[in-house]
């Protein structure tokens, strides 16, 4: 398969949806030579579960529409079985959730959706398919990119010494990560953003930040300087 894949975690899609920016995702898909994939676990988090809650029914329907349109696709569209992803996700979840150990217990940090998204990226890499994980929340990203920093952070917040088994994260280091913020930047640079007044890039980056994208004000300033 000679194509690229972006595997989406729930938070990135939630940032787009809650800000009313799903049309940008539609347009990004049109200029992307590849597929946008969500695992069944993430599908559950962003559609199947919230669609049963009146407060979030509309958000879930908007994302379901994207699946129906083929903007977001399931792993079966690229020949991957849910059962295999779930199995790999369990392995990742067990490794991550046993890596940081307080004096009394390991700290359970991540769940099935995040693990399944990472699992699919690793499975794609095994087949030499170019893939990237889109994840907005901080913990999953830190597990992949800076687990030692995460240990320091957890020790500070939990007021306890932690042992960390960095070997548990070896495989995860191969995962490349982007956030909704970077996708917004691409949309801006590629002329997808239809608002042409004011400091629209700043407004969009802060909008995704306020809907859960873990990006600092300093990082936003840096991105704006790259306009």
């Amino acid at each position, binding site marked *: 398969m000679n194509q690229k894949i*972006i595997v989406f975690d*729930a*938070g990135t899609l*939630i940032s787009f949806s*809650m800000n009313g920016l799903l049309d940008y995702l539609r347009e990004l898909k049109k*200029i*992307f030579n*590849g597929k946008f994939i969500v695992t069944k676990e993430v599908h559950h*988090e*962003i559609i199947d579960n*919230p669609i049963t*809650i009146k*407060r*979030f029914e509309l958000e879930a329907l908007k994302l379901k529409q994207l699946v129906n349109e083929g903007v977001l696709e399931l792993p079966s569209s690229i020949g991957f079985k849910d059962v295999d992803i779930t199995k790999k996700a369990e392995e990742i979840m067990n490794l991550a959730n046993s890596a940081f150990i*307080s004096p*009394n*217990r390991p*700290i*359970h*940090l*991540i*769940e*099935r*959706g*995040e693990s399944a998204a990472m699992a699919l990226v690793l499975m794609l890499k095994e087949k030499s398919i170019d893939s*990237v994980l889109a994840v*907005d*929340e*901080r*913990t999953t990203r*830190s597990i992949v*990119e*800076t687990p030692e*920093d*995460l240990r*320091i*952070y957890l020790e500070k*917040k*939990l*007021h*306890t010494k932690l042992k960390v088994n960095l070997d548990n994260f070896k495989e995860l280091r191969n995962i490349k*990560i*982007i956030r909704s913020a*970077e*996708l917004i*930047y*691409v949309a801006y*640079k590629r002329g997808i953003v239809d608002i042409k007044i004011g400091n629209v890039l700043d407004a969009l980056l802060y909008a995704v930040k*306020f*809907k*859960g*994208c*873990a990006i*600092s*004000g*300093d*990082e936003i300033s*840096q*991105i704006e300087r*790259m306009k």
Partner: protein
Amino acid sequence: MEEKENILNILSKTKEAIKEGDTTKIKSLSNQTTNTASLTQDPENIAIAVIVYSLSKILERQGYSQLPGWDKFYRLYINSIDNSIKALNNNDEKLLKKNLEAIRLGINKLSGKLKDYIQDVFRKASINKASKIYEHGLSMEKTANLLGITLYELAGYSGERTINEIRPANPTDVKSRIKLAMELFR
């Protein structure tokens, strides 16, 4: 129950603060539950974090006490805290669970405006506690599942706070991440 002594201390001090009518102290005590709840992820610890925080919010709004059903509900709330302290002292986990559950059942039995208000306070307390636990380093999905809220609720609430200002000591360079994204769409 894990971290029993800490929870016992928090509930006992909460009881004192109720007598003193000190809602600020109750709120502060509820913050002390976050650390334990993040570490143990034990359902009772999490329930206590939400119950104590909700209590501070309920007592802050004195208008509730004028509504029908208030006296009965308030008695049940305070009795449940008293009985939870007894259960912890006796290492009776079953009784503790029963008393924490009694508050939830008591809310379901309320009617009219009071029910709407109290349900809203508890839902918001769950989101508040979730954002605190997320801030302690658990993932967003893990935290949402522990508190029984949706990712939409947590993403919206946590985004409004300063959590997203926290950066790792050695973050991936912003330019590298932008470059990666731009190359993907080349």
